[in-house]
């Protein structure tokens, strides 16, 4: 069982609200990732981090921002949610050396 947790699992929120999706892992992994998953199923990398104080934009442009102040914590923030942000957000972490990534259960966000 992977030790990576995302909260909340489901979130319905109004347009214009600020939200933070939480992601924490207890495996001490340096690398962490955020993916956005379309309703159809495709996964897009939106942010990643190689360690504390390291964050990079992924391949899909996103209005969200991330921070990495502690190794175990990689929250994602939307300053002003819009209906176009409705999606599933998946967090993952991996050990160095090309190892497998562990995924959280995901947060399904609906902006109304």
């Amino acid at each position: 069982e992977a030790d990576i947790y995302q909260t909340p699992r489901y979130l319905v929120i109004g347009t214009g609200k600020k939200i933070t999706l939480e992601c924490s892992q207890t495996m001490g992994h340096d690398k962490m990732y955020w993916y956005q998953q379309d309703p159809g199923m495709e996964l897009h990398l939106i942010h990643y981090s190689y360690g504390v104080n390291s964050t990079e934009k992924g391949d899909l442009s996103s209005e969200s921002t991330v921070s990495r102040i502690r190794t175990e914590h990689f929250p994602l923030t939307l300053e002003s949610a819009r209906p176009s942000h409705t999606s599933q957000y998946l967090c993952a972490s991996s050990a160095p050396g090309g190892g497998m990534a562990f995924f959280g259960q995901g947060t399904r966000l609906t902006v109304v």
Partner: protein
Amino acid sequence: AQSVAQPEDQVNVAEGNPLTVKCTYSVSGNPYLFWYVQYPNRGLQFLLKYITGDNLVKGSYGFEAEFNKSQTSFHLKKPSALVSDSALYFCAVRAYTDKLIFGTGTRLQVFP
């Protein structure tokens, strides 16, 4: 740039028959290749990986995958499909950048 292609949106197979889910990749250098499975409303679960060594890799739940360098492919296979194998399957590649890039996913439907 690294990329992964899964040419089939959906694969249908009868229970007890062999299954193949196709994946091809493009990456500079030696690839690290992965297969993940996603069940409804869940995160991704690791199935198997190829880093070096034998071209035939065995993974969880009776799945295996064959690495073919000349065809740049990493097809997922199982000798005898189960209805419970029905899920979304994602191929992924990691290259020197350490980003983990996913294919578009293939929905496997196993019919009784």
